[in-house]
């Protein structure tokens, strides 16, 4: 199998704080990979480094062979690599449909924001909304959706751009257990049906155990361990640093 993402010896410092130190990891194309670790261990920083939010101090990040660390933050999504955030970023006063349509990037031109939204987008948006289970709510203002539904909308918005790989930052934080199951189910289908590679930060081990094929665990800015979920769950270093005594 080929790697869609290759992170090699990446370091990122904030002043004297070593947020990421010498991180190397590979994400296989078509896989679902998890990233766990204590609060403040550098998981979100690594996500930010990959999508170019800030420059890295050392190392290399390659997406399908293209070096990302020299690109600007807006040059990366067109390659097919997208991310979502811990806090939902949706437009509460707009309808779900409108949120979907403005998410579609037609060109990377500043004037594109003044262009008319093409009619064909309606159908595409409706299809994806029905896939995530929000079709009935498509004309509601996004702000009226529950927090869990907003997370699903955010996921749907990312799908509008047909990414090759999605990076999700705590997709189930603050969501009730029943709806969490719904989100896991959708994520597995996204991976399966649209062949989208997923890289997921998550604290909820029930989600990690049931969703991912491979897990990386970080602690204090470094990679602590990696392996299959079952292996990681029983890894002594991971238990000490993160899971707590069993």
């Amino acid at each position: 199998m080929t790697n869609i993402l290759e992170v090699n010896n990446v370091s990122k410092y904030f002043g004297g704080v070593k947020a990421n130190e010498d991180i190397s990891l590979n994400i296989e194309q078509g896989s679902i990979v998890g990233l766990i670790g204590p609060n403040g261990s550098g998981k979100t920083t690594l996500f930010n480094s990959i999508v170019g939010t800030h420059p890295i101090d050392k190392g290399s990040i390659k997406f399908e062979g293209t070096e990302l660390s020299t690109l600007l933050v807006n040059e990366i999504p067109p390659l097919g690599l997208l991310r979502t955030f811990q806090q939902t970023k949706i437009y509460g006063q707009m309808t779900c449909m409108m949120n979907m349509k403005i998410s579609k990037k037609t060109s990377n031109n500043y004037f594109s924001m003044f262009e008319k939204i093409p009619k064909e987008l309606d159908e595409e948006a409706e299809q994806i909304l029905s896939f995530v289970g929000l079709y009935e709510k498509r004309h509601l203002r996004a702000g009226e959706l529950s927090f869990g539904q907003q997370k699903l909308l955010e996921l749907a918005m990312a799908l509008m751009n047909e990414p090759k790989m999605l990076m999700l930052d705590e997709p189930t934080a603050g969501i009730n257990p029943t709806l969490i199951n719904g989100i896991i189910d959708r994520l597995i289908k996204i991976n399966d049906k649209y062949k989208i590679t997923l890289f997921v930060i998550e604290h909820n081990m029930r989600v990690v155990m049931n969703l991912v094929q491979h897990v990386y665990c970080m602690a204090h800015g470094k990679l602590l361990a990696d392996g299959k979920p079952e292996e990681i769950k029983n890894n002594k270093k991971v238990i000490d640093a993160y899971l707590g005594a069993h």
Partner: protein
Amino acid sequence: MSEEEKKIRGYAGGKVDTVISVDEVQDESEKIRSKISNQELLKLSNQSKYLEIKDLNAGYGKMQILHNFNLTIDRGQSLCLIGPNGAGKSTVLHSIYGFTNIYSGDVLLEDENVTKLSPAEKLKTAGVAYILQDNSVFPDMTVEENLLMGGFIKGKEEESREAANKVLKKYTRLAERRNQKAKVLSGGERRLLEISRALIMNPEVLLVDEPSIGLEPKYIDMVFEILEDLQKNEKKTIILVEQNAKKGLEFADIGYVLVSGETAIVGEGDELLKNEEVGRLFLGG
């Protein structure tokens, strides 16, 4: 299986096969909803009305969230509210503390009507403290300064200092970091600081909004151990909202399941944990 093994750890394990939409949860819970009598609520609170919510209709602005909501709890008991996102769980806490618009109904504490008290008065005179869902430490202040801010409303720094010392004596984890800025604390330590800060006013009633949100697994257990200590050893009355419903119900004496602003099911925490319908609809199977 030993008692120790049975305890729910962190986010708890389990399968994820039960896939139900929010609307289905609502429809189905409509079916199992029973008319809950006040006798039933009183039975759970040992016939005590230490804190009571009576026929409460409340919301934000014109948007009504809670419909004829009732609750009773005894002194030193703990009660956990669970239910789907948007069911009105946090609104119950907000209504007790005074953050909502109350259209009708009452909040009584030891038979005294405290419905109209402002949040500041609740904290200062009624002995009710609220611990926010969101991160609320002052990042650029030291741990000690954060604790002192908890007593700001007293207007007597000496008393706050005394209370802070008492708290620091108890939680050595915080004492070690007394003079460090709060921003260097780990997620679990921040939560501990937020709970400790609420203790400076020596409240009788603690309202805790999602104690485990965003926390790594090992700190979840720690936070619940702290709450258990406050209830068992300091006889605090605790009402909490928790999405990590299994852990919340395991901790609490009483559980209320909320759906669309109304109480659907009540019971002892352990009893609800074992209830199959509750498991399927609200605990993820």
